[in-house]
C-alpha cells in the first residue's frame, strides 16, 4: 500500500540559501508524525512546499502515490489533504456551525447541486457531531469570532477534519493555547487518530506536546533531516541536542 | 516623417505631465495602499488656486504659483491625509475608494460653483514660438514642459535614492514593519509622500493648464490616464509610471492623428486591458505574487 504522503528529495532555495535541502520521508497510514527543529530549520518552508503554497526548487511530493506538483490548495484539499495554519484561521463573522459546514460542503455534490440543493448541503448532522467531538456544542450558533482563543483553535482543527481527509497537516496547533486547553486539544487529536485512523503531520515548537502526541518524529536543522525515530530516541539523540543547544 | 516627429515630441510633452500624476498615484499606493480616485481632480485644482490668487488677490503669476503650492501642500497633502485617509485606512481599501471618489466630485463641483463652469485661459509659462528641429516644427512650450517634468522626476529620483530621508521613504514603501524596527519614522515618511504627491499635482496642473485650459472637469480624463499610465508601466514602480505616462502620451497623440478620432480615447483603455491580460505586473513592474 502506498504511503499517505511521500516527500522525495524536496529542496527549496531562496537565492543562495538552501531553506530545504533534499528532504525525503514518508508518512504511513494512521501515524502521527512530528516535524520539529530549531527556528529557521526549514519546517514551515517544507510545509509550504508540500501544500503547494510555494513551488519547490526540486524533488517530488506524492499524496497516496499521486504527484501533486502544480495543484492549487483547493485541489489538494479536494484530494483529501486538510490543514491548519500557524496563525488562527476561522471565519469570525460566521457561526461555528457555518464554519464547519463550509469546511465540508465543497466535498459534497457538484457545483450545481451546491447552488440548487439544500442550503446546508445535507451536512448539519455530521457538522453537529464534529462540533460535539471537539466539545463545542454550546457554541454551535455563536459567531466564531466571539469564541475564546483556545476554542477557536479547536474549531480550526475541526474544520481541517470535517471533510474526512486522508492526511491532515497541523502547523503549530499548540501555539498560544493555555495548558488546560492544550491537554484537551491533544486528547481530542489522539482520539480522532484512534477512532477514525486519521493521519497527521504536526509542526510544533512545544516539545512536551510533540513528544506526547506523536508516534514518530523527524528533526530538521538547516534544511536537512538530522534525526528520525520514536520520541524517546530522538529526545536523547546527541545530534538533536547539539542542534537545539548549539545553534 | 516630420509629422511623426512633431506628434512624437508633443506626445512626450503631455506624456511627461501624465507621468507626474501617475508617479504621485504610485507613491501613494506604495506608501499607504491608498488608491486615490481623486488624482485627476488633484491635478485640476491647483490651476484654480493660481487663478484665484491672480484674480481675487491681485497677485502676479509667480507669487500666485507660490500661493498655490502652499495651498496644495496644505489641502491636497496634509488635510487629505489627516482628514480622509488616516481615519479610513484601517477599514481597508474600499472606504478609501469611495471617499476619494466623493472627494473628486466635491472638488469638481466646488470649482464649478465658486469659480466658473467655463474653461479658463491659463497663462503660459513659455512663449508659443516654434522652432524647427530636423525639419519638424516643434513648439518651445512642448520642449520646456518635457524638460521641466523630466527634471522634476530626476530630482525626485535623486531625493529618493540619494538622501537619507528619501531612502527612509523607500524603506517605508517596501516594508513599513521592518522600516519601523530600523528606527524610521514611518508616519512622517507617509506624510512626506502625500506632500510630494501634492507638489507633483501642482506642477502637472501648471504645465497642463496652458495647453488644455483650466476647466472643472479636466480631472475626469486626467485621472483615468494617470491610472492607466501607472498600471501599464508597473503599479509598484516609479520608473514604470514614467514609462507609462510617456507611452500613453505618445500613443494618444499618434492615435488622434492616424487612427479614428472617435476611438482615440479607446486606445489607452485597450492598451490597459491588453497589459493586464499579458503582463499584469506592468511593463517595468515586478510581480507582487498572485493572490490565489
Amino acid at each position, binding site marked *: 500500500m502506498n504511503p499517505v504522503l511521500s516527500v522525495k528529495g524536496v529542496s527549496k532555495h531562496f537565492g543562495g540559501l538552501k531553506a530545504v535541502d533534499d528532504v525525503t520521508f514518508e508518512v504511513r497510514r494512521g501515524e502521527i508524525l512530528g516535524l520539529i527543529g530549531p527556528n529557521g530549520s526549514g519546517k514551515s518552508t517544507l510545509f509550504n512546499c508540500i*501544500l503547494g503554497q510555494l513551488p519547490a526548487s526540486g524533488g517530488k511530493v506524492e499524496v497516496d502515490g499521486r504527484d501533486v506538483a502544480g495543484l*492549487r490548495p*483547493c485541489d489538494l*484539499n*479536494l484530494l483529501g489533504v*486538510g490543514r491548519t*495554519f500557524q496563525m488562527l*484561521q*476561522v*471565519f*469570525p463573522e*460566521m457561526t461555528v456551525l*457555518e464554519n464547519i*459546514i*463550509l469546511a465540508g460542503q*465543497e466535498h*459534497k455534490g457538484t457545483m450545481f447541486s*451546491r*447552488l*440548487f440543493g439544500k*442550503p*446546508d448541503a445535507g451536512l448539519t448532522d455530521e457538522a453537529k457531531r464534529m462540533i460535539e467531538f471537539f466539545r463545542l456544542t454550546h457554541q454551535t450558533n455563536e459567531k466564531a*469570532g*466571539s469564541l475564546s482563543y483556545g476554542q477557536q483553535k479547536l474549531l480550526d482543527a475541526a*474544520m481541517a477534519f470535517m*471533510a474526512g481527509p486522508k492526511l491532515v497537516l497541523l502547523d503549530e496547533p499548540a501555539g498560544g493555547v493555555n495548558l488546560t486547553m492544550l491537554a484537551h486539544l491533544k486528547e481530542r487529536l489522539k482520539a480522532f487518530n484512534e477512532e477514525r485512523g486519521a493521519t497527521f503531520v504536526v509542526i510544533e515548537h512545544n516539545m512536551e506536546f510533540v513528544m506526547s502526541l506523536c508516534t514518530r518524529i523527524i528533526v530538521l536543522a538547516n534544511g536537512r533531516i538530522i534525526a528520525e525515530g520514536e520520541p524517546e530516541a530522538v529526545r536523547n539523540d546527541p545530534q538533536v541536542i547539539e542542534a537545539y543547544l548549539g545553534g | 516623417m516630420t509629422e511623426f516627429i512633431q506628434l512624437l515630441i508633443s506626445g512626450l510633452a503631455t506624456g511627461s505631465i501624465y507621468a507626474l500624476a501617475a508617479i504621485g498615484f504610485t507613491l501613494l499606493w506604495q506608501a499607504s495602499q491608498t*488608491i486615490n480616485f481623486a488624482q485627476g481632480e488633484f491635478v485640476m485644482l491647483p490651476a484654480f488656486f493660481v487663478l484665484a490668487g491672480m484674480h481675487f488677490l491681485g497677485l502676479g503669476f509667480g507669487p500666485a504659483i507660490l500661493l498655490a503650492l502652499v495651498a496644495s501642500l496644505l489641502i491636497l497633502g496634509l488635510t487629505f491625509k489627516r*482628514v*480622509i485617509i488616516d*481615519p*479610513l485606512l484601517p*477599514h481597508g*481599501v*474600499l*472606504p478609501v*475608494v*469611495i*471617499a476619494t471618489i*466623493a*472627494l473628486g*466630485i*466635491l472638488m469638481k*463641483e*466646488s470649482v464649478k*460653483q465658486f469659480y466658473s463652469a467655463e474653461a479658463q485661459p491659463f497663462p503660459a509659462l513659455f512663449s508659443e514660438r516654434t522652432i524647427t528641429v530636423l525639419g519638424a516644427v516643434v513648439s518651445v512650450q512642448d520642449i520646456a514642459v518635457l524638460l521641466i517634468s523630466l527634471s522634476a522626476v530626476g530630482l525626485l529620483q535623486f531625493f529618493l535614492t540619494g538622501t537619507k530621508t528619501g531612502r527612509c521613504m523607500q524603506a517605508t514603501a517596501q516594508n513599513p514593519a521592518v522600516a519601523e524596527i530600523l528606527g524610521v519614522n514611518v508616519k512622517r515618511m507617509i506624510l512626506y509622500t502625500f506632500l510630494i504627491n501634492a507638489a507633483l499635482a501642482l506642477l502637472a496642473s501648471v504645465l497642463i493648464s496652458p495647453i488644455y485650459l483650466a476647466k472643472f472637469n479636466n480631472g475626469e480624463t486626467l485621472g*483615468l490616464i494617470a*491610472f492607466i499610465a501607472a*498600471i501599464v508601466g508597473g503599479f509598484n514602480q516609479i520608473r514604470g509610471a514614467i514609462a507609462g505616462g510617456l507611452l500613453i502620451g505618445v500613443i494618444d497623440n499618434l492615435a488622434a492623428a492616424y487612427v479614428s478620432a*472617435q*476611438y482615440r*480615447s*479607446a486606445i489607452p*483603455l485597450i492598451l*490597459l*486591458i491588453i497589459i*493586464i491580460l499579458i503582463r*499584469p505586473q506592468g511593463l517595468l513592474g515586478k510581480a*507582487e505574487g498572485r*493572490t*490565489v
Partner: protein
Amino acid sequence: MNARANFLAILAAVAVLAVLPSSLSTYSVYVLCSWMVFSIAAMGLNLTLGFAGQVSLAQAAFMGIGAYTTALMTMAGIPWPLAMIAAAVECFLIGLVLGYPALRVQHHFLAFVTLAFNALVFLVLRNEEWLTGGTYGVVGIPRPSVLGFSTNQQTGFYYVVFGFFLVLSAVLYGILRSPWGRAFQALRENPIRANSLGVDIRRMTLLAFAIGSAYGGIAGGLLGQLVQFIDPNSFTLTISLKVLLMVIVGGAGYFFGPYLGALLVILMPEFLRFTEGYYLMLYALLVIVLMISCPKGLLGIVDRIKLSIKLRQNPSATAWEQGK
C-alpha cells in the same frame, strides 16, 4: 423570534409597496420604479462587492448593455421576456470573459479592468451609430405587455418592475443561503483559509461577479423600458459610481443594504433640490462624512447601535465584537 419579526416586517413592506402606487402621483410612481430598478443593479453589485469582496466599476456598463440589448431586440419585434433573458445571459457571459483574466492576477485589478471596460462601452455606444443611434440614443422603447395588458400607464409598469424586484430579491436570497453564498462569505472573510478548505476561490469570485453583472443587465433592460429612451450618457462611469455608492452607503455585505442605499441616492436629489447647484457638493460631502464616521454604511451604524445595547445589558461581550 427575530427571524419571524424580520419575516413579518418584510411582508408588511411588500404589502405597502403593492398598494402604494394607487395613492401616489405619476411622478412619484416613476421615482419608486427607478428606486427598484437601481436596487436591482445595486443588489448585483452587492454580491460582487459585499460578498465576494471585489470592486466592480462597470455596473452602469452592464446596465447599458442590458438596456440596449432589450431595447433593440424588442424594437425588432422579439418578445420582451426573451430580450430580458438575452440581456441577463449576455451580461453574465461578458462578466465571465472580463473577470477571468482580471481575477487571475491581483485583488484590485478587477476595479481597473472594469473601469476601463465602462469607458470603452461608453465609446462604443456613442460611436456605433448604425446600431445604437450614437449620441441621440434610442427613442420610443416600447413598454412590455403582460398577458395582453399594456403597461403604458405608469402604474401598470410599476407592477412589472415590482415583480422583477421581488423575484430577483428572492433569487439572490436563495443564492446567499446556499453553499455558494457560504463560500462567497468565506472568501470575503478569509480567502486563503477558504481555499485550503476546498473552495475554488477564483471560480467563486468570478461567478459572483458574473451573477452581479447579470443583475446589472436586467436592471438596464427595465430602465430602458421605464424611461423609454436611452443614450450613452445614461451609462457612464459616473452612473457606475452612483450604483457603487448605493451599495456602500446602505452597507456592503448586508442583504438590505442596497435597497436602503438606492433609496437614499434616488431620493436625495428630490430632497436637496432647493440647494440647486450645490446639490452635488453637499452630496459628496455627506458621503465623505458617512465614510469617515461609519465605513460600513448605514446598516453598519444599526449594527453598532445594537451592539452597544447588548453591551449595556451584558458588559462581558467579547473584545472582538467591540472592535468591529
